[in-house]
């Protein structure tokens, strides 16, 4: 199905029937004027783009070629911003002009399906913030930090170049195609374009990937809160704060969202400060010092309850807080990095890039750098957002470039800042924090011995530094705080204290950063469980129709329990893993995310092929090819590698053989129980790798089939909704062009009551 059956129903109305000036007012800029504006190179424009190119080029030279003792963080910022500007101005413009050809005479779903609620035209600047808040979470903050073990250069290049040619392209294409299809989801588009087999594979992959992603995000929080009474208290306090906010909005002052968010934010700060006081008392330490397993169970129970409670009580208010914190903190960090300009002492490329023996995540640069850094360069999960709320809110077709492509560039910038923050701390401290307890023994002495024993040039960590840093940030120990969040928190605290408060404020900033990450990870856990529950119910409904009714309580609870059990099991596996946890599971997270990207790009390629746009298909074939090679290669290594540190099954065989030999300890596993756990964990991880790679191969094969079919039949088909005449005008980018200013002035001159009526219902 798909390939031929739907050809007839979706052919859009003759574009000629659409008018640029339907009444007295223009709804779109004259395409010739756009073309002329793009082509006209005024002296000022030449100077501006000349400066941007030169500054960008110079920054790259400073990063990649000049080899001093240190490199200043400002070059990262300039290299990133200049490359983004050039990529946005030229590459995304090329994609718009040749591949997507948006038409502002056509109404968007927000206009022709307008209901004032789910479909509501939203100002582009507001929607940009919305979309950014929905796509940027803990991912871009964690991956770059783990990848920093390979040196600063590989991660920087992948984040910046990857986003221009892969990540932002994916987000832009998916957003555009979903918008042209009334806001259809990625799963529905996969079914329309790839048929039943490809569509089903994409759906199952999405569900499994969601489980893995939620589990690993939860693992990051668990690692950040374990043995930290301060963190447990302040993050725990977000629950009563959110409940209070929810009730305030429900019963006391409905709709006063900014007001309650500010109140919530003040309470949050109080919780952070109070956490320090509580952790300083004897009862506080006794009550809130929890080990990893306890915290993992707490998050599992919390996850279940949060996902069955009504949205207004917990999810919605915490979402407001999380948006508030996210935009505020990221803005603050950007300003701080530009003012403080920390010196980076890490090497450009470290020995772990080539020998694959890095303690943080194992494996060589190729392919493991590209799966360790997913969010920030290319993130498949965004395809779910770009085919979710955003396409239903977009005002005009041409705005998809600013929101889709531009929004992802912003996330990439967040990843660069996280990388800078992680690199700005002492290199020895970085490895002491990020090497698993299995290697450091979890003690300061063990960490010093391990890190200095790695034999890295210029790295010499001592007991005093580790003890002093722990004391500065108000933690009992910072050894083996894996998962990236604590490292980012130390980096952020290190930078922020130079700007505000001095060393005395280190502990506040550290816990502020932990809170900031925990907030949106918990929101992602809760929201992910809910979405997965609906997908589960939908699938179960095919066999037991009663499950389709989502308001049937027992069904909802059962489906929630299944999903929580699934990610909870992976979380517990990571928490108790004798080999470490993050280092064994994080590659699965990256692979899963990149596989979803491959699926999203595959759907996009099938759409482009069916439109017959073969001349420009390389725009999507390039990132799709790269993502496929990376993820399939990484999966194969995880499945077939004979190196126990890399291959799950190799590790499995090594431990099984040791058990069969009657050994009572092996590698980093000190007991038979631990050895059995490794055998079990590696089997689960290996099987998951197989599932992922098989599903992706199915999707890619069906895409290639669909593409070849389209080529042979000279297809010019589409599953787009019919074209509807637009009746409103809005500028496309952040700034108005001269032609847009003229049209906007004409609209502003007409009283609101006299403007054309909407076409919605």
């Amino acid at each position, binding site marked *: 199905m798909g390939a031929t059956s739907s050809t007839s129903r979706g052919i859009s109305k003759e574009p000629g029937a659409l008018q640029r000036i339907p009444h007295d007012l223009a709804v779109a800029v004259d395409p010739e004027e756009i073309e002329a504006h793009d082509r006209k190179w005024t002296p000022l424009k030449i100077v501006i783009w000349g400066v941007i190119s030169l500054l960008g080029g110079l920054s790259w030279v400073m990063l990649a070629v000049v080899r001093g003792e240190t490199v200043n963080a400002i070059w990262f910022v300039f290299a990133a911003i200049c490359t983004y500007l050039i990529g946005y101005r030229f590459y995304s413009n090329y994609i718009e002009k040749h591949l997507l050809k948006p038409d502002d005479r056509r109404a968007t779903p927000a206009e022709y399906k*307008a*209901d*004032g*609620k*789910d479909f*509501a035209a939203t*100002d582009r*600047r*507001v929607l940009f*913030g919305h979309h950014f*808040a*929905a796509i*940027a*979470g*803990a*991912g871009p903050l964690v991956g770059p930090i783990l990848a920093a073990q390979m040196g600063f250069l590989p991660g920087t290049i992948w984040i910046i170049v990857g986003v221009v040619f892969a990540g932002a392209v994916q987000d832009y294409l998916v957003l555009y195609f979903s918008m042209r299809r009334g806001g259809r989801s990625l799963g529905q588009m996969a079914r329309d374009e790839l048929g039943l087999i490809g569509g089903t594979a994409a759906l199952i992959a999405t569900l499994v990937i*969601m489980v893995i*992603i939620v589990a690993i*995000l939860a693992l990051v929080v668990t690692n950040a809160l374990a043995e930290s009474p301060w963190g447990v208290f302040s993050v725990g306090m977000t629950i009563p704060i959110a409940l209070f906010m929810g009730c305030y*909005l*429900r019963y006391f002052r*409905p*709709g*006063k*969202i*900014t007001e309650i*968010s500010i109140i919530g934010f003040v309470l949050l700060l109080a919780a952070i400060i109070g956490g320090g006081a509580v952790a300083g008392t004897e009862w506080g330490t006794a009550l809130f010092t929890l080990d990893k397993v306890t915290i993992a169970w707490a998050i599992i129970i919390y996850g279940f309850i949060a996902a069955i409670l*009504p*949205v*207004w009580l917990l*999810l*919605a208010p915490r979402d407001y807080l*999380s*948006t*508030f914190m996210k935009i505020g903190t990221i803005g603050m960090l950007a300003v701080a990095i530009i003012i403080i300009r920390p010196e980076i002492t890490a090497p450009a490329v470290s020995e772990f890039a080539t020998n694959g023996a890095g303690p943080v995540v194992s494996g060589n640069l190729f392919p493991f750098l590209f799966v360790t850094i997913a*969010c920030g360069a290319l*993130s498949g*999960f*965004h395809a*779910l*957002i770009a085919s*979710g*709320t955003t396409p239903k809110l977009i005002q005009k077709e041409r705005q998809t470039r600013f929101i889709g492509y531009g929004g992802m560039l912003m996330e990439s910038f967040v990843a660069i800042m996280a990388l800078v923050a992680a690199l700005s701390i002492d290199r020895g401290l970085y490895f002491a924090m990020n090497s698993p307890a299995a290697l450091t023994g979890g003690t300061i002495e063990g960490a010093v011995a391990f890190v200095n024993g790695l034999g890295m040039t210029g790295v010499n960590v001592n007991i005093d530094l580790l003890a002093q840093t722990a004391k500065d940030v108000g933690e009992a120990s910072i050894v083996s705080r894996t998962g990236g969040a604590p490292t980012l928190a130390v980096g952020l605290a290190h930078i922020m204290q130079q700007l505000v408060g001095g060393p005395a404020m280190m502990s506040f900033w550290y816990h502020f950063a932990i809170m900031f990450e925990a907030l*949106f990870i918990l*929101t*992602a856990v809760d*929201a*992910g469980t*809910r*979405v997965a*529950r*609906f997908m589960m119910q939908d699938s179960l409904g095919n066999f037991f129709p009663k499950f389709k009714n*989502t*308001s049937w309580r027992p069904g909802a609870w059962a489906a929630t329990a299944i999903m929580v059990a699934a990610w909870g099991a992976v979380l517990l596996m990571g928490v108790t893993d004798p080999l470490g946890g993050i280092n064994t599971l994080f590659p699965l*997270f990256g692979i899963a*995310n990149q596989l979803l990207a491959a699926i999203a790009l595959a759907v996009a390629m099938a759409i482009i092929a069916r439109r017959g746009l073969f001349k420009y298909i390389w725009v999507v074939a390039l990132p799709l090819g790269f993502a496929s090679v990376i993820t399939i290669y990484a999966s194969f290594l995880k499945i077939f590698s004979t190196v126990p540190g890399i291959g799950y099954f190799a590790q499995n065989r090594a431990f099984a053989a040791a058990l069969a030999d009657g050994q009572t300890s092996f590698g980093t596993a000190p007991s038979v129980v631990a050895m059995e756990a490794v055998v079990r964990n590696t089997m689960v991880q290996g099987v998951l790798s197989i599932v992922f790679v098989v599903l992706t191969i199915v999707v890619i094969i069906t895409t290639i089939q669909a593409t070849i079919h389209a080529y042979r039949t000279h297809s010019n088909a589409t599953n787009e909704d019919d074209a509807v005449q637009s009746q409103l005008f809005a500028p496309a980018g952040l700034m108005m062009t001269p032609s847009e200013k003229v049209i906007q002035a004409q609209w502003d001159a007409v009283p609101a009551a006299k403007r054309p*009526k*909407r076409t*919605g*219902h």
Partner: protein
Amino acid sequence: MPTSVGIGTRLRLGLRAGTRRVVWWTRALMGEDAYEKYVEHHASCEPDPAHPIMTEREFWRDQTDRQDKNPQSRCC
């Protein structure tokens, strides 16, 4: 710009306009203007007796109830 307006006044006006924009953007970003947008949409449509306009309180309840039925993912 007339010369009679001092630089202080201009600065103050600019500052006020800037603050207004920040407030507008923050409110809209948090979704606080959702009810206003709903009312505006409702007014621009033909009256429909089957769907009378919701009060503010009803609207916000309806909004979270719709989120209950149609959850949206947050990214990693």
